[in-house]
């Protein structure tokens, strides 16, 4: 079956017509992440229809879109937790191409791991390791993947735990933390790997409303200090405040791209308009 499927896999990365580096990006800087023509079929279901994104160092990019639009699948394709049907992802010089027929072997797997070392991920459900304390959660991968000395890894982890305001929870177990604290530990864990890009998959969607603020504040701080971040979120205020650029995804493709003042305040695309009008009527505080 696979033999007579002939797909052109030489993708040329083109910027989205409206895609420009955010205003804070240094002139001449190279993108740190390029994803080209990312396509995903789940059986007969066309979830991603060739979505592309370019992110420059220091940018915070928010991906908005209604549930089921494919934005989480897109984010999870960037580090190959979801294996896309087609497309190319390049992060900090490491390139991995979709391999839907599993023709490539272990070399691709090790390249995917290499790619993942450059992209930290924060999940909606935190996914902390329950059998490990906070500090152990943070140093597990630096020690056992990067081969870092435990002392060194702990020093880095402590720095980031301080940044997310949880130094005193160092030896607690995740079960004793609130949802907001867990997510902040998850952020510290991702940071301890010292990735080039941070991927956030709806990081506040599983939280009690009263705990959302503490997580968003940590994320905004990271954005303001020049971390490169891609955030899939429903938090309009956060996107407005912290994002350099906003992508609006609809049915597996990006319908609109631009600075938040444009995409959120004055959307041009009718689909973006319709989506945002719901948010306005459903109780934005403004």
């Amino acid at each position, binding site marked *: 079956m696979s033999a007579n499927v002939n797909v052109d896999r030489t993708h040329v990365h083109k910027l989205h017509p409206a895609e420009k580096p955010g205003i804070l990006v240094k002139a001449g800087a190279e993108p740190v992440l390029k994803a080209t023509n990312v396509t995903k079929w789940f059986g007969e279901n066309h979830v991603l229809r060739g979505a592309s994104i370019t992110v420059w160092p220091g940018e915070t990019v928010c991906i908005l879109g209604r549930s089921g639009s494919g934005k989480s699948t897109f984010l999870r394709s960037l*580090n190959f*937790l979801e294996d896309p049907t087609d497309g190319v992802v390049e992060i900090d010089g490491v390139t991995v191409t979709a391999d839907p027929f599993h023709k490539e072997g272990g070399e691709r*797997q090790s390249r995917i*791991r*290499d790619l*993942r*070392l450059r*992209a*930290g*991920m924060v*999940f909606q*459900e935190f*996914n*902390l*390791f*329950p*059998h490990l*304390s906070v500090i152990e959660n943070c140093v*597990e*991968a630096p020690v*056992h*993947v*990067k081969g870092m000395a435990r002392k060194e890894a702990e020093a880095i982890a402590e720095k980031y735990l301080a940044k997310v305001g949880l130094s005193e929870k160092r*030896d*607690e*177990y995740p*079960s*004793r933390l609130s949802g907001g604290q867990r997510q902040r530990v998850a952020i510290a*864990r*991702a940071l301890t*790997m010292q990735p080039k890009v941070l991927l956030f998959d709806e990081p506040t969607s599983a939280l009690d409303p009263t705990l959302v603020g503490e997580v968003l504040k940590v994320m905004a701080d990271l954005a303001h200090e020049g971390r490169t971040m891609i955030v899939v979120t429903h938090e309009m205020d956060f996107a407005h405040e912290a994002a350099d650029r906003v992508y609006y995804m609809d049915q597996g493709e990006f319908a609109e791209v631009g600075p938040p003042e444009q995409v959120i305040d004055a959307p041009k695309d009718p689909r973006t308009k319709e989506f945002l009008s719901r948010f306005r009527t459903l109780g934005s505080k403004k």
Partner: protein
Amino acid sequence: MEQDARALAQAVAADEARRAARWQLRFRLGWGLLIALLAGFMVISLNVELDFIARATPFIIEGIWLTLIVSAASIVLATFLAAVGALGRLSSNAIVNALASFYVSFFRGTPLLLQLLVWYLALPQVGIILDPIFCAIGALGMNYGAYMTEIFRAGIQAVPLGQREAAAALGMSSRTAFLRIVAPQAFRIIVPAIGNDFVAMLKDSALASTVALQEIVWRARNVGQKEFKTLQTFMIAAMIYWALTIIFSTFQNRIEKRLAAGDRNKETKG
């Protein structure tokens, strides 16, 4: 008002405590009555014959060692086979998976007693002659290993997918993720099941009496048959198994509690 409400709450709590105490009392009385009935039946119908019991009991009790040794060795073998079998059942390699599922299907699909007899009576036909103790360990271990394979597999699969994804996102290979993240969590789910199976094994090891292993049941039968007093000797054997089961169940409950509380214990110092 506040006063009244508090008095009512106290009265309700006191009543609840009273009823709980009464339930406990009845429960213990029930047990006591049943034990008395059992003892009474033995005394009346068996014309006790204390001197026979005094002679037979030490002989039967000596079988405890073999029972414990066979059970312990079999559970170790079964645990090892189950770990390998579960990895096989979860393997993406079709041949490995086929091998593991064939093992589970065959050993769960045939009687344990038959398997034991094959080890002892049928294998000599192809020139393999084993000591009864090795027949018992081999048969029990392989049979329990098949059941435990499925338990181990379920335990590993009970670890949420998100754990594997988080490990992968941190750059772990699937091997590292399994050893460092999945296995320790699966272990906590599996250990109580191993304890359960050990207690079951204590009793299934009695089947080894059929291959002339001189454990508890073999001794009870032999010493009883000589004087036509197997009712007495089997009763003694039953009491020994019962006591062993109670002891190991208590022990196992304790391990289970400790596993469940593992995190909390460590945290109190922090």
